């Protein structure tokens, strides 16, 4: 390969090595023929889901239209991205409401979040519907190595009662391949790493530890291909490739560190082997790999359940020993309300770090964030009262120069969340006439 040959490197080039190691490449200038029309980078979609609702008083920006005032507390960590996001108001998931099924708002809200339907109240014969991310994955997934990725950080149990008669399959999954088949999230960063770059085989903790003693970087395995490719690249592409490979190496280092820490903290733990004990570190690892997957066009569709719906996880990292879920049922008690706000704020701080990394990842003339649609939100608004209307929703990124961010857009009350899903599916090149209880896509003029 020469520097300028007029012949482009295929977009789906892999650096291959011994074994099954294969590393996809980021978007390089050399992937477009010289002086030819440069293809637009693909649009990516990720849903980042947080449980138990959000402190809406500290979430909603009061003023409609262009952001002008300072962000409220929970949004504050995202100030640096005010020109990159749309805060959407009044989206509703009617399917999450009781609708005669009694208690179980947590089970319903996550079950319906991307499926758009009222899930069956059961712990046995689960029934939801194909989720919108999977509708997209089914249509465009053949263009990437993975049709979609399902990530999580908390709990991937698929059986048992997780909320008043609702199966854990509803609270612990966002993505559903069919009405009876949820797609459990990958929780363990090591497992995700292996999925992205390796054989896909998840090792037992013992085997993983044994191998780790002799572990070399995956980059070592593909060094031959890397060198060959480097000779055919111009200086800009070379730098891009170096940065990209360094980011993979950095993920490896983080993984090794997490694995060492886990061994030190609790050698007999039943926690997945590569899961860092610290929430922020875990989040960073998962999102670093999500970023790499997007950057190398390994997938364009990701669902990420930051923690399972209804979780009672504590946040000792920020001094909160109480469980998240109990805190949200604060009944107006200021100390508990404050803890909820702090947890919500902690989550948006992590999100900000991810957004920063997306934004600083150049892609063609733009950046990865511009070419993405990062949807951050929850299946409940007020977790204390279990409200399913005005769901907290951020659309971050421009979806490939499509959306016009930097503002708050409020739709009419009871606007189905599924209308938003239709809009996203359309932008992903999968126009869909009907989905869940949608009454039609969101009014385009409001977002673009």
């Amino acid at each position, binding site marked *: 390969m020469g520097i300028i040959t007029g012949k482009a490197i295929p977009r789906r080039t892999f650096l291959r090595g011994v074994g099954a190691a294969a590393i996809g490449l980021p978007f390089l200038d050399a992937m477009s023929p010289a002086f030819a029309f440069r293809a637009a980078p693909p649009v990516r979609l990720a849903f980042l889901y947080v449980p138990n609702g959000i402190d809406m008083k500290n979430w909603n920006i009061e003023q409609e239209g262009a952001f002008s005032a300072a962000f409220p507390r929970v949004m504050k960590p995202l100030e640096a991205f005010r020109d990159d996001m749309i805060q959407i108001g009044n989206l509703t998931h*009617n399917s999450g*409401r009781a609708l005669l*099924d009694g208690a179980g708002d947590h089970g319903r809200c996550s079950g319906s979040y991307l499926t758009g339907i009222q899930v069956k109240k059961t712990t046995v014969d689960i029934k939801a519907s194909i989720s919108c991310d999977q509708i997209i994955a089914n249509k465009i997934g053949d263009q990437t190595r993975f049709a979609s990725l399902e990530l999580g950080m908390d709990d991937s149990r698929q059986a048992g009662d997780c909320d008043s008669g609702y199966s854990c399959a509803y609270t612990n999954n966002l993505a559903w391949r069919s009405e009876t088949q949820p797609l459990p999230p990958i929780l363990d960063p090591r497992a995700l790493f292996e999925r992205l770059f390796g054989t896909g085989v998840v090792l037992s903790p013992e085997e993983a530890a044994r191998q780790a003693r002799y572990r070399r970087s995956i980059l070592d395995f593909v060094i031959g291909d890397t060198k060959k490719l480097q000779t055919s690249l111009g200086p800009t592409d070379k730098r891009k490739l170096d940065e990209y490979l360094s980011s993979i190496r950095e993920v490896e280092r983080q993984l090794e560190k997490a694995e060492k820490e886990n061994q030190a903290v609790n050698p007999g733990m039943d926690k997945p082997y590569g899961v860092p004990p610290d929430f922020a570190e875990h989040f960073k690892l998962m999102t670093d790999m999500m970023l790499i997957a997007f950057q190398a066009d390994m997938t364009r569709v990701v669902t990420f359940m930051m923690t399972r719906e209804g979780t009672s996880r504590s946040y000792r990292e920020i001094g909160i020993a109480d469980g998240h879920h109990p805190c949200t049922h604060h009944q107006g008690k200021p100390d508990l309300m404050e803890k909820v706000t702090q947890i919500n704020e902690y989550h948006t701080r992590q999100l900000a770090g991810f957004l920063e990394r997306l934004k600083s990842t150049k892609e063609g003339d733009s950046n990865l964030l511009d070419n993405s649609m990062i949807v951050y939100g929850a299946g409940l608004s007020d977790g204390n009262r279990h409200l399913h*209307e005005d769901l907290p929703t951020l659309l971050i990124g421009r979806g490939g120069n499509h959306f016009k961010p930097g503002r708050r857009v409020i739709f*009419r*009350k*009871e*606007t189905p969340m599924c209308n938003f899903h239709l809009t996203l599916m359309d932008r992903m090149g999968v126009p869909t006439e009907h989905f869940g*209880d949608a*009454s039609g896509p969101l009014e385009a003029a409001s977002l673009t």
Partner: protein
Amino acid sequence: MQARGRGTAPPPLGIALEGDLARRIDVALAVAMLNGFATKSEARSIAFSISRPSLKTAQIADVLAGFYAGRPLGGSAMIGMPEGEPAGDDTPFLNTLLAIKGADGTPQYTSNIRRPLDTADDCVLIRNVLLAQNDGNASIVLAGPATGMVRLLELYGSRPQISVKVKQLVVAAGSFPAGAAEPSIKSDVAAARKLFAEWPTPLVAVGSEVGTALPYPGSSIEKDFAWATAPHPVVDAYRAFKPMPYDAPAAALAAVLYAVHPGDDYFKLSEPGTISVLDDGRTQFTAGAEGKHRYLIVDPAQKDRVIKLYTDMVSAAPAPRGGRGRGAMPEAEE
């Protein structure tokens, strides 16, 4: 779909009301009447929508709904309103009502509905609340143009839900068995035609002749609301609608009464048949055993009984509210 409510007895019938509040005072009276039935646990008001896009109408609807929901004046209810730009649809009565000042010189009736965004799409709202009702335990009363009901029909997947959830649709519009074109029909002939042709449940029409024969007595406004120690929005709406004294044609009240008590012989019922809509907006009833439509016929022997019930129900004080309250959510059966 099955009835899945807890407990043994189903809750009272849920009524979703959609009406042309800006042009028909009987719609405001119908809101009050539903409250009266609610105080007796004979019905539940599950949704209230207005028939045309109009911000001021939505504000008045909010004031009425808020009043009966026990919220202080100026609250905000979930009001349904059709899609479309509110333009030129404000009637003088709305301005008069909103211009009434309290003792302190500030507007007596205010609403938190300040923009169309503060309302819900009427068809989505009604669809959503219907899903929260036991099968067959809801009826819809329409006292205005059929535009919104037709949009409800056209919502993807809604027809089977309507068939299961809705006991009947009672339409306070048209004239029967034949008569002059009635304004609610005339304002959207195409929608009315589609509604009568395609609505999947039993449908009972209440013509303008019923409303005229059984009006709401203006004298009730003067004497039956003495209990109200604070401003009463229905009383003030009635006064603002037309110079007093007058008796208001009240087809919407007959429609609510029939929806709540279909078997209580307040009215006679036509034989089954089919209602069609002519190009000029006139309605025509054709008898036929297979037809899904009927229309109400005034029973002169019941006139006093009906009017007495009207005034008792419309002038009832707001039903006491219990429970923890769930904001502006549509009312479910739980």
